[in-house]
């Protein structure tokens, strides 16, 4: 259903946004020596209780009230299982949640990375009230971006201002 890792990252990060997180940290690290790709998304949102954790990987679980299906977690978990990886979900109510997924880098079923820098841009610009910290180390390069640093320089000009968006696009294009 979600074809690319960049989509999984976007999807899990949006869970964090909807859980009321103020700080979301996202890392995607490819370690060739260990043949390991590690994706970690941690937040300081509402978190989940032990019972919620138990069912969170169930494709038919969702915290959303209506009929909605909370598919994202189970989709990512399924993707890791297909690629000889591991999946962990840790959460403490009131403190936050950490999702960690690993993949064997050379696995034939490894989903394409997709446009991971676009994921950065879209998350920052459409959730200006959240502080994001991104750490990517991929074949194409390395990037560390903390939206707090950008906000500090901007001094009150919103990160979703059109010219700031243009700046971020250029900046990300130079890096990855």
């Amino acid at each position, binding site marked *: 259903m979600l074809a690319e890792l960049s989509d999984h990252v976007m999807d899990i990060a949006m869970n964090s946004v909807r859980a009321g997180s103020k700080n979301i940290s996202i890392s995607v690290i490819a370690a060739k020596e260990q043949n390991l790709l590690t994706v970690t998304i941690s937040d300081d949102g509402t978190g989940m209780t032990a019972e919620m954790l138990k069912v969170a990987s169930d494709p038919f679980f969702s915290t959303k009230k209506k009929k909605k299906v909370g598919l994202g977690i189970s989709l990512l978990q399924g993707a890791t299982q297909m690629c000889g990886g591991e999946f962990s979900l840790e959460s403490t109510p009131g403190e936050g949640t950490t999702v960690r997924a690993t993949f064997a880098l050379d696995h034939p079923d490894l989903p394409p990375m997709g446009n991971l820098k676009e994921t950065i841009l879209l998350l920052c610009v459409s959730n200006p009230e959240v502080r994001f910290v991104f750490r990517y180390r991929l074949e194409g390069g390395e990037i560390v971006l903390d939206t707090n640093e*950008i906000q500090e320089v*901007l001094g009150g000009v919103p990160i979703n201002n*059109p010219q700031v968006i243009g700046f971020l696009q250029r900046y990300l294009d130079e890096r990855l």
Partner: protein
Amino acid sequence: MNLDELKAIREKAKKDIQLRQKEARIKIVVGMGTSGIASGAREVLRSFVDEIAGRNLVDVMVTQTGEKGFASQEPMIEVLEEGKPGVIYGNMDAEKARKVVAEHIVKGNPVLEYVIETS
């Protein structure tokens, strides 16, 4: 990161903001739940972000939400403008998003052929 460039943008943007003296005039909400992402909401969101930057639409902001309960018509977006009914568009793609910006956001004429509901 080239902070000087960012500082220059800040100074210019501050002047723009003082000139306009107001908050976002229009909010575009893109449904980015799992099914929205799976059906292409990401390209739609990207298209809006690019249009806002490219046309320097300082009074328009784009934001994300979860599913809106019309899963069969994803990707979906809603255009919210103060004092007007919200307009929900369905089955969007990048091209349609550009048309919504050009016609609805800029000229004020909703693109009726893509509208699935008004609120």
